[in-house]
């Protein structure tokens, strides 16, 4: 399966770029939108939350603390949710291609994944720009971010492909995943700090494999701490298990997928 992907690497690369280019075709600013979007998001968080709402985050000084906290969590979450939500529908969206052309089907979620990673990198770039606007230079601990992105990718890819395969046969899966993703956002400490939760709710949030990932981003972007690598063991194992399950089911279901599309 991986060998087939390797022979199609040029196509995958071209498709990722084509996908990005296609998204902003016929717009005057074109590629600039890739930076403008995340930059705008970062700006909104920075100005609205720090100036208008003057939100404070317990334990961290500075009025930029809460917007940065939000941005860090959102960056991690957006990567996760983009890979997941697009993987769920990727086989259905490409039904006619799958039916008419013989190519490794795993290319499709890999293209989604590649596109999401590029978006993620651009968002981080925008965050870096906003940081500099606040007079801070990105800390050296940023070099750990690719590790976080890799683990988030595993989690999202695993859940996404698994749901994507089932979604081909039962379209309800896609709807359920959309709702589940909305709920999942709120059991991840993105807009609130984990300490603010009552103990019962906190246990649920701690069981969420995305929680250490979001905290990993917050540690690096906000607290300039070396991330807690031990906390990554749980999401890594979780992600690896999901990936294995997804690959197993994908292999078994792959011959039947075209029949059901």
């Amino acid at each position, binding site marked *: 399966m991986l060998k087939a992907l390797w022979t199609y690497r040029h196509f995958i690369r071209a498709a990722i770029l084509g996908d990005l280019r296609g998204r902003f*075709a016929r717009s005057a600013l074109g590629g600039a939108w890739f930076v403008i979007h995340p930059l705008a998001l970062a700006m909104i968080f920075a100005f609205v939350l720090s100036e208008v709402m003057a939100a404070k985050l317990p334990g961290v000084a500075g009025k930029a603390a809460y917007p940065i906290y939000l941005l860090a969590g959102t960056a991690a979450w957006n990567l996760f949710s983009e890979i997941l939500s697009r993987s769920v529908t990727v086989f259905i969206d490409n039904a006619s291609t799958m*039916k008419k052309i013989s190519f490794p089907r795993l290319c499709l979620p890999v293209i989604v994944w590649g596109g999401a990673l590029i978006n993620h990198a651009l968002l981080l770039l925008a965050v870096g720009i906003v940081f500099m606007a606040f007079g801070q230079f990105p800390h050296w601990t940023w070099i750990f971010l690719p590790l976080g992105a890799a683990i988030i990718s595993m989690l999202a890819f695993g859940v996404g492909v698994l749901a994507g395969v089932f979604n081909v046969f039962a379209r309800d899966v896609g709807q359920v995943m959309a709702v589940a993703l909305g709920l999942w956002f709120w059991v991840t400490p993105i807009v609130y700090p984990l300490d603010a939760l009552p103990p019962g709710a906190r246990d649920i949030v701690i069981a969420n494999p995305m929680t250490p990932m979001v905290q990993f981003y917050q540690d690096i972007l906000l607290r300039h701490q070396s991330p807690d690598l031990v906390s990554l063991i749980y999401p890594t194992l979780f992600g690896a298990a999901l990936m294995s399950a997804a690959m197993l089911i994908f292999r078994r279901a792959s011959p039947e997928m075209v029949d059901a599309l």
Partner: protein
Amino acid sequence: MSQPRVVLEVADLSKSYPTFSSNMARFARWVGVPVSPISVFEAVRGISFALQEGEAVALIGQNGAGKSTFLKLVTGTVRPTAGVIAVHGRINAILELGVGFNPEFTGRQNVAMAGGLMGLPPELIVAVTPEIEAFTELGRFFDQPLRLYSSGMQARLAFGLATAVRPDILIVDEALAVGDAYFQHKSFDRIRQMKAMGTALLFVSHNMGDVRALCDRAILLDKGQVLKDGPPDLVADFYNAMIAAKDKERQQITQQRLDHGWIQTTSGTHEATTASLQLVDAVKGTNVEIALTGQSLRLVVAAKATQAMSSLVLGVMIRDRSGHVVWGSNTWHTDQVVTGVCAGEMIRFTLDFPCAFGSGSYSLTTSLSGDDTHLTTNYEWRDNALIFEVINSGIYFVGSSALDARFSICRV
């Protein structure tokens, strides 16, 4: 040339589509729980055949006979339930033109993208792009977004890409000719060239003219099985006879190859049959086997009604050696329908016509039916019931129609 190489071998190929009581049952099977489906639809059952290089094979059959499923199995988009497919060489399929195209990209960009999807390495795509640009004749449109293309232009681009690199096996599903008449010729020529260079061709067509013109062999599929595999004229006539009536149980189809190479196919429900069939000279009344261009001919058909029927129509069709229809009509179109036919009655039809044909071998096909088409009631259909040769006794010309054409020349 040495022994032709076999490029595709298919052995006992089957594809069935199971239906499960619920999706849960289907999912359970993937993780190893043995669940049996509640019903199974068999689209393709036990097909075996081999394809040699340079050979062109047409798949014919009614809708739902399993033709497209079979092509998808060979292409690899659908996986077989049982059986073996051995492909020796590069396979290229045109199941639908324009799959994988993005309307926002230019023709050039789409060639790169869709070519990658077909598995072509990027260097090769770069190498063949100028050739595609020239072949499709899109001009400046080649570097404009696809959404500005007409549907014919899109089809041209898709066809140009699909045939840019000569494969060992080309699979085409009802898209042999695309675009306008000019481009249709061009695409046909390209397919012929590839065939001449050794590409094996496997295609689905409902156009019996294409089948006769292009292929060496035809395979008739019915209910997922091979019903007939043989020379195109034989299989095409058998197919024509097969679709002739809805009440297939009463239909009988017989085929025999006559000593001069033509195949006679007879089908029908036999309410009326041809008792005798004669081609005679209209003036002398003598039997004609070899006619001269310009001779007055008369076809005499004696039909016998075995049952009473409300109406009877005789149809006559003349075809040349390659199976192209030269002329055909019936007594329904000429307002000469015989009505109220009694059982046992004999009816004699005569048809006078000039031998306005070029030299060559021609066949006469007759039909006895209830109305203008043999598809609803088919009493009897006789393909190639009578064969005659034509010799040109006058001025030399090529072609099958002896036009009353004259040159006039004046030197000015």
